């Protein structure tokens, strides 16, 4: 039903990422990924004959910048859609704006509030925190753990995770003995871990995306706590494993399959997507992929996919996106629907562990 677009028509995609600033570990790989993908797509002839152009704005993680830039993208650049922002706080600030302007927003932030309450034009690609929490609890049950301590960082990600853990624990017959929030710039956490230790927890769950994840691991080992450490899907960056060094061994966390792409069976639907993205990215930027870059991949690709099916009309694309099924991205296989603007299920996660300084699939008995 789509009209034939004029050749070399340009479709602008706005991108809001916190490339610098406190959340730069999210935004930087995301921006790089988008840049790389857009180049690739254009090399391959664009989308429906139209060239993609990414207008990337660095919000530095500040909501006020996100608002200002979002308005710019919508009014001035007249972008087709916006991907990003990297953090939930920013996304929530521009959710209404995009809704009002009827511009598609595919967020790379994790919080559930982004798609619940449901906004017509707002989607998100990272996995749901609740599913990560359930995955963790399931693993714990198998390991015979029932009393745990939770630490989380005071960011949107940390808070959302903490909330989900606390909400889902009773259903999974797990008791949270203690829950503490630390500052994302924390330099040493032995104090708070000592508090956990004194409560005799059987396992520790740390929920954050910051580098402090490695500090938790180190401090636990230094304190000789001797209980397993579970991390959130925010641990999906080989950097943190390197940082934690020997202390990283044995950490368990749920994660998309990007990091263990080579370990997947050849017939896994995500296998080819993952290995391609991984090798491309690593070749282009000389650095390890992280799951965060993967979010940007998913955000852009679900859009492109929908555009390919529905053409270059915003409303049509929105419909197509809502009906996108079985799309294999880096975060999992997406099945969007009119009342699920996230599209990922429990199976998006794999439980991983760290073995000899590398990610490995957790072997569950």
């Amino acid at each position, binding site marked *: 039903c789509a009209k034939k677009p004029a050749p070399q028509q340009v479709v602008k995609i706005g991108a809001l990422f916190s490339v610098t600033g406190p959340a730069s570990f999210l935004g*930087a790989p995301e921006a790089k990924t988008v840049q790389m993908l857009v180049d690739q797509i254009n090399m391959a002839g664009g989308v429906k004959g139209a060239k993609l152009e990414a207008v990337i704005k660095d919000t530095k993680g500040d909501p006020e910048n996100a608002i200002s830039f979002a308005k710019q993208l919508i009014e001035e650049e007249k972008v087709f859609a916006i991907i990003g922002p990297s953090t939930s706080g920013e996304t929530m600030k521009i959710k209404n704006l995009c809704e009002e302007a009827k511009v598609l927003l595919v967020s790379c932030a994790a919080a559930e509030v982004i798609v619940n309450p449901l906004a017509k034009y707002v989607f998100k690609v990272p996995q749901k925190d609740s599913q990560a929490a359930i995955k963790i609890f399931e693993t714990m049950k198998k390991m015979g753990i029932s009393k745990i301590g939770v630490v989380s960082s005071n960011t949107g990600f940390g808070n959302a995770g903490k909330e989900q853990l606390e909400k889902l624990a009773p259903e999974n017959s797990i008791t949270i003995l203690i829950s503490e*929030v630390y500052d994302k710039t924390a330099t040493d956490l032995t104090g708070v871990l*000592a508090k956990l230790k*004194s409560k005799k927890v059987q396992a520790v769950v740390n929920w954050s995306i910051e580098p402090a994840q490695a500090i938790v691991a180190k401090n636990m*080992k230094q304190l000789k706590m001797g209980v397993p450490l579970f991390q959130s899907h925010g641990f999906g960056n080989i950097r943190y494993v390197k940082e934690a060094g020997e202390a990283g061994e044995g950490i368990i966390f749920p994660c998309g399959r990007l990091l263990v792409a080579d370990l997947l069976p050849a017939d896994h639907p995500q296998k080819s997507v993952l290995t391609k993205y991984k090798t491309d990215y690593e070749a282009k930027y000389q650095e390890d992929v992280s799951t965060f870059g993967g979010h940007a991949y998913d955000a852009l690709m679900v859009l492109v996919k929908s555009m390919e099916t529905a053409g270059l009309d915003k409303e049509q694309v929105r419909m197509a996106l809502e009906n996108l099924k079985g799309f294999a991205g880096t975060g999992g296989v997406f099945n969007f629907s009119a009342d699920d603007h996230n599209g990922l299920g429990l199976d998006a996660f794999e439980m991983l562990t760290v073995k000899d300084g590398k990610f490995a699939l957790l072997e569950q008995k």
Partner: protein
Amino acid sequence: MLEQTVQYILSGLTIGSIYAIAAIGYNIIYNATGIINFAQGEFIMVGAMTAITLSAFLPLPLAILFAVIITALLGALIEICCIRWLDRPSVLRMIIITIGLSILIREAALHIWDEKVRSLRFFTGNEVSSVSVFGAHISPQVLWVLGICALIVVLLNVFFKYTLTGRSIRACSSDKMAASLCGINTRNMVTLSFMLSGAIGALAGCVISPITQTQYDCGTHLAIKGFAVAVFGGLGNSMAAVAAGLIVGLLETFSITVMPLAYTDAISIAILLLVLFFRPSGLFGNREAGRLKEF
């Protein structure tokens, strides 16, 4: 219970020693120029980052040595480019310049080293080794931090009290014109103090990096805490800075036992403020001297 308390004390010492070593650097430039160098945190970051980069090719001690030298040179460069040729700048102007510098250095570091977190090797042992005291545990690196902290303080005290150069640096801060009328090359003294605080910042950065990890923007946090601690102790007095640092560290750790961790910072700073209201020249500051120094 004892083990628990000891553990808190040790944790407090760990955090405290980090703050203390960050605070010392402030005092040097303060003594020389009467200003607070807000780029001090960036010296710490640059020192650590340089050492990390160098440690890929060099043995650890050499890497640290070079990092210290490079950061000292950076300090000198900054002074020569941005401060030396100013004609009697006001303190506020200097503060703003150093704030500007800190922003610039941080951004430069972002583009040199990217946004990823790194850390230096542990000096002894590794991530998982710990020393146990009464059943509580502490990373050997903390002992390094404390030791180097103590060493720096002792050396600095001797330097400022008993050596001529040290005294001249203090004279410069008190009255620049009078100092040059005494035959002191005030410009060189300021350069020297920037080099010195650069070097100390770098050393601090290296020794805390295994514990805290290093990222391009980690300087800001350390700078704020270091500044708070330096003021809390009484500006210009390094011994007081260490004491204040340890006190703040212990305070923060013990506040965890009663309050949610999220408010630790707010609590420790609120207590600092309270102290300031009652002792406006800091915990160990000399009130008389404080009044005679102008902003």
